[in-house]
C-alpha cells in the first residue's frame, strides 16, 4: 500500500512538472521608432515582455532624430555628444558604410528633411538645393573618439536604417540570456530567437511589393536570425507620376530609382541585416551580388519590378512559394 501511494505520488509529480511553469505564447504590441512592433515570445510570465517593452521605448526616446528630447536630437543640434550608445552606433554604421562603398550613409538627414520624409511634408527639392546641402552631408564630417561623437559643418544623423536592427539585437540578447524563444516584428525588421516550442522552422513571409496584401515568398529559418527588407513601397510619395521612395542615394541625395522593388537580408545580427538591406537597395542588384560573393556573412532575396525573384544560394533551399533564380557564390 505504501509503495503504491509512493508510486502514485511520483506519477502525479511527474505529470505536474510539465505544467508547473508552462511556457506559453505571450504577445505585446507597441508603437515605437515610428512603426508598430509586435513581440511574441514563449515564456512562463510577462516579465521579459515588459522588460523588452521598456527597452524599446528607451531606444525610441534616445535614437529618434525628430523627438526634441532624444540624445540623437541633442547631438544633431549641438554637434557633439558624449554617449557610448550613440558612439557605438556611429562606429558600427560607419563600418557597414565602408564595406558597402558608402551605400549606407547615416549622415543624410538634411537631405531627407529636404524631401520631407521625416515630417511627411513631401516635396521635390531642385538640384541647386541638393547641391547646397552636399556640404552638410558625409561620414567624413562625423568623428568618433571614445564615447564622444562630433559632427562638423552642420551634419545631422539619422539612425532610421539601423535603429530597429540594433533594437532586435538587444532584445535577442535578453531573450537568449533568459532561455526564451520567440519572434519580434519590428516594422520591416524581424528577429527570430531560439527554437519554436513545436520544433518547427520559423516561417517568415516576404511581402509582395506589387500587392502588399500578398506574400511573395516564404522563408523557413532555424534558430536566431534577423530578416530585414528595404523597398520602394514602404514609405514613398508620388508627384507628377514619379514615385519617390524614402531611401536616398548618397551620391545623388535623391530617392533611389531602381529596377528592383525590394531587397531582403537574412543575417545573424539585426544591426548588420538592417544596415545591409538599405545599402544593397542603394547599390542595386549587380553590386549587391558582388558584395555577397566577396564578403559573406549574410544572404539576400531581391524582388525585381517585373516580379522575378533572385536568392543567394544559402537561402535557396529555404524559400517556398515563388520561383527564384539562385545566385551561386
Amino acid at each position, binding site marked *: 500500500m505504501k509503495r503504491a501511494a509512493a508510486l*502514485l505520488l511520483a506519477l502525479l509529480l511527474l505529470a505536474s512538472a510539465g505544467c508547473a511553469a508552462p511556457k506559453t505564447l505571450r504577445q505585446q504590441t507597441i508603437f515605437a521608432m515610428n512603426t508598430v512592433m509586435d513581440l511574441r515570445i514563449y515564456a512562463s510570465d510577462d516579465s521579459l515582455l515588459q522588460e523588452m517593452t521598456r527597452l524599446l521605448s528607451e531606444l525610441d526616446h534616445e535614437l529618434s532624430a525628430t523627438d526634441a528630447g532624444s540624445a540623437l536630437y541633442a547631438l544633431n543640434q549641438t554637434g557633439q555628444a558624449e554617449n557610448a550608445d550613440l558612439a557605438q552606433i556611429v562606429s558600427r554604421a560607419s563600418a557597414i558604410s565602408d564595406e558597402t562603398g558608402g551605400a549606407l550613409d547615416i549622415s543624410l538627414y538634411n537631405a531627407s528633411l529636404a524631401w520631407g520624409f521625416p515630417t511627411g511634408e513631401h516635396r521635390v527639392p531642385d538640384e541647386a538645393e541638393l547641391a547646397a546641402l552636399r556640404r552638410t552631408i558625409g561620414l567624413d564630417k562625423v568623428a568618433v573618439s571614445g564615447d564622444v561623437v562630433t559632427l562638423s559643418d552642420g551634419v545631422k544623423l539619422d539612425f532610421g536604417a539601423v535603429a530597429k536592427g540594433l533594437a532586435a539585437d538587444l532584445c535577442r540578447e535578453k531573450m537568449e540570456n533568459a532561455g526564451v524563444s520567440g519572434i519580434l516584428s519590428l516594422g520591416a525588421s524581424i528577429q527570430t530567437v531560439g527554437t519554436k516550442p513545436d520544433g518547427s522552422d520559423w*516561417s*517568415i513571409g516576404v511581402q509582395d511589393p506589387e500587392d502588399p496584401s500578398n506574400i511573395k515568398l516564404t522563408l523557413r529559418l532555424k534558430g536566431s536570425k534577423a530578416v530585414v527588407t528595404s523597398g520602394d513601397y514602404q514609405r514613398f510619395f508620388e508627384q507628377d507620376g514619379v514615385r519617390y521612395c524614402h531611401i536616398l542615394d548618397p551620391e545623388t541625395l535623391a530617392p533611389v530609382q531602381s529596377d528592383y522593388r525590394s531587397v531582403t537580408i537574412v543575417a545573424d545580427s539585426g544591426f548588420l541585416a538592417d544596415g545591409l538591406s538599405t545599402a544593397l537597395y542603394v547599390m542595386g542588384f549587380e553590386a549587391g551580388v558582388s558584395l555577397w560573393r566577396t564578403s559573406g556573412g549574410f544572404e539576400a532575396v531581391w524582388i525585381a519590378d517585373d516580379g522575378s525573384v533572385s536568392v543567394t544560394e544559402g537561402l535557396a533551399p529555404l524559400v517556398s512559394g515563388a520561383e527564384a533564380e539562385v545566385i551561386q557564390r
Partner: protein
Amino acid sequence: MKTRIWILLLAGVFLALAGILVIQKLTAKPAAVAEVFVDGALVRTIDLQTDGVYRIESDRGWNELTVRDGKIAVTAASCPGGDCLKFGWQNSGAPITCLPNRMTIRFTAEAALDGIVR
C-alpha cells in the same frame, strides 16, 4: 484488496493524464478570431466566421473593418495615408496596423506564418 487499489490508482493517474491532454488540445486549437487594439488596449474581439462590418473609433480617428469569407480587412479609414487599407484581406500572421490611429488587428488563430517582413 491490493489489486483493487492498484486498479483504482492506475485509473486515477490515467484519468488525470487524459484530462491534461484534453485541456492542452483544447487550448492549442486555433480560434478564428481577430482582436482589435487601440493604443495597445483590446477594444473588440471579432469572430472571423461571421461576415460583418465594424467601425472602430477613437480620439485619433476611425477605421472600418470588414469580415468576409473568414478574413478581415480595413475597408475605410480616416487616416491620411491609408496604409492600413493596403494590408488587404488577412486571417493570420503579423498584425494589420494603422499607425496614425494606433489601431492594431491581431489574430489569435494559429498563424500559418510567424511573421511578415513588410
